[in-house]
């Protein structure tokens, strides 16, 4: 039975009528047309679907939309402020930390959440926090550089 869910996505309040079990990922992509959030595995093991829910990283492919009721969601489309990119986005560009870029939105949002709670992570902490995020182009070295660069910039 469909239910109505209220949530704030990228600063805009939304009311969605949907099956409560429908994954948040599908609602973002198919109802709100926010296609920056990607499907990668559907079982929470690749991180491509990462979004921020009340500032924390969640895997939207295994998050039923009902769990997002009254929550604040940030997707990759909501990270920049106008034309001004978030420091993590800037760092990914500066390091060229993308190949196909399909994992990039999830990588960036995971890094944003990480730096929010730990602004000065060690390499081990970055790897531990981001280990769920897969990059099949295996562009991990440059992604690590980007996260380090963003951490430096945020601390300054």
């Amino acid at each position, binding site marked *: 039975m469909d239910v109505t869910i209220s949530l704030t996505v990228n600063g805009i309040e939304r009311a969605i009528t*949907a*099956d409560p079990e*429908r*994954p948040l990922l*599908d609602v973002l*992509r*198919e*109802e709100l*047309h*926010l*296609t*920056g*959030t*990607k*499907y*990668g*595995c*559907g*079982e929470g*093991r*690749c991180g*491509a679907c990462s979004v921020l829910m009340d500032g924390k990283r969640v895997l939207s492919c295994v998050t039923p939309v009902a769990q997002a009721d009254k929550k604040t969601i940030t*997707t*990759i*489309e909501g*990270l*920049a402020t106008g034309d001004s*990119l978030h420091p993590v*986005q800037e760092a*990914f*560009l500066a390091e*060229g930390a*993308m*190949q*196909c*870029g*399909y*994992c*990039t*939105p999830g990588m*960036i949002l995971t890094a944003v959440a990480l730096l929010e709670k730990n602004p000065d992570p060690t390499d081990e902490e*970055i*790897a*531990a926090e*981001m*280990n*769920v*995020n*897969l*990059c*099949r*182009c*295996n*562009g*991990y*070295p*440059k992604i*690590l550089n980007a996260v380090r660069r963003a951490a430096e910039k945020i601390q300054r």
Partner: protein
Amino acid sequence: MIRDIFAKKLESQRSERPDEPRCEVELSRRSFVQLLGAGLLITVTEGVSVGRRRQSATVAARLHINKDGTITVMTGKVEEGQGSRAQLTQAAAEELRVAVDRIRLVMADTALVPDDGRTAGSRTTPSTVPAVRRAAATARELLTRLAAEQWKVDRSALDVRNGTIKHQATKQTITYAYLAKTKDVAGAFAQTIASDVTLTPVDEWEVLGTAVPRPNWRDLVTGAHRYPSDIVRPNMLYGKILRPPSYGATLESIDLSKAKAMKDVVVVRDGQFVGCAAPSSFRAAQALEAVAKTASWKTVSHPSSKDLFSHLKKNARPGGRTRPRTSGSIDKGLADASKVLEQTYEVAYIQHTPMEPRAAVAEWKDGKLTVWAGVDGPQSVQGDLAGTFRIPSERVRVIVPDMGSGFGGKHTGEAAEEAARLARAAERPVSLRWTRAEEFTWAYFRPAAVIECKGGLDANGSLIAWDFTNINAGGSAIEPPYRIANVRTRSVSSDSPLRQGAYRCLAATANNFARESFMDELAAAAGAEPLAFRLAHLENPRIRTVLEAAARHFDWPTRKKKVTADIGVGLACGTEKNSCVAACVEVGIDRKRGEIKVHHVCEAFECGPIQNPGNLLSQVQGCIIMGMGGALSEEIQFADGRILNAGFAGYRVPRFKDVPKIDVHLINNTSIPSAGGGETPIIAIAPAIANAVFAATGVRIRSMPMRGAALKQA
């Protein structure tokens, strides 16, 4: 058996496309302007019709100068993360003498672009980059001649910089944009691209050779870029396809009535094809579940991965698709040898697992089909769709938005065909995105292999005989790069239980794993040091250069002396697709857990003049880590016609925690033409790891992936 269903497609995967572009674009000026945007396009001639296979293309089929001075360049190549968008933009900018931001690259849209063949086999760099450069250089020359005619001066007195032609003596200038407004340009660009036009020599490159970023990078970090799975069309539905429970199973009966009764759901059955489309993918999945419950299937028996290698060996067909290649006499070489070594290596099936599984949106309008699809050969999929739906190929348009990787795994357009079937029945556009489990099960795999090696050493410890047979995986890089008097190499086909096809560097990884592991075994048998043993048999100066560079940067002699029972070092080298690679690695062995951990990889790579060092570094780093997956953990397990590990839980690919210290040394060899660099860097990793494990433990692991369990007893 499943193999037969795909026989035709597999055949087409094997054949490489010709290097020269095949231009089959036929468009009226009106439709062309509609496609590219009214007002922008001015140089196109009436009805661009530029010949068929292997015939020369016109300049107009490859590039257009727009009124605002930007230049639209067209290519059939796709961008899947390997860097072709930046590289082809650089190629055009270099020869046109303009900044990269003046170039608008249109990729992989069959209505607009010439057929540059599949994006595969590292062919963009040696084939498409020169094709684009020749077109751009021809265009520059034609424009310069037009300026010379207009000014009535000698062409040689003119220079071109930043899209502006200048007559040095009179200081007169004219821009491409201005010239493009004249009728003369349309006539000039109808000429064929000169095959002998002079290209800018490497030492004069200004744009090529630099780390130009991918032009649409910003759209990737903001989420604005639309991948094939992100395309939305008005009134679009989402589709799901019924899959058999096992390979070779056939549908005997099914009841569609429950799903048909669901609101807004379209259900399609056409023989074995059953699918549902609905306004959301969640709804489509519910509908599919309802029909799947009613399906009854006839299953067939199927080999399991447990018996894979004996199955491949038993069904090997020597004398099949390729003949043995020999030099000297293998029989005499082995007879003359004072020591003969014989070993067998095994390589499991692995999967590409591109981050974006197969996806397509299909739309029918007035009997014409348009698909946006994640495939690496737009024209080849266009042909397949035309065949499937029995319509002329000019009624099929395939567009490939920059897609979420492929690694050779997206040669085929299954999702496009399935979406088109659903869209035709629904009379609405349909988006079909394969699930990860579907990609793991119904895409194709890198071939498994059994490789049999025999080597003979003379009394001095020199290699004099080499007999090498690859069963099932193919003949890429099968020739040993070493100086050996008596050689026989064979690529033998077999009965592949799984659907198999291209993968980054294909069989070169398997062949190099066996060869470079076996070289280490022969070195040990000869009582020689592995690096010295290789160098003693290696004449190819390019491989020697990378091998010596990797060993030097790794500090091989010192590191070799520090080997313990828990820390080993190993090296390997190889060549494929006209590029050369060598790697030194250090591994740590955890005997209790039976684990191999790669600590450090030092790799040297050379592919001629480097066209984009930033991108090449990404490719080499990516190959190294991807190669670790196939070496250590990736393996498709199957039984009873089912994939047992069709998800990232059971199929272990490299993650952040697996990333070792990586040193990459790119060697810029400007004495030869550039070769592609996105594949070969993968081939040295697995054997270097195997050799390092042996150095530490004395245990020789002859399988990919290397199962660390063998080390528990060591």
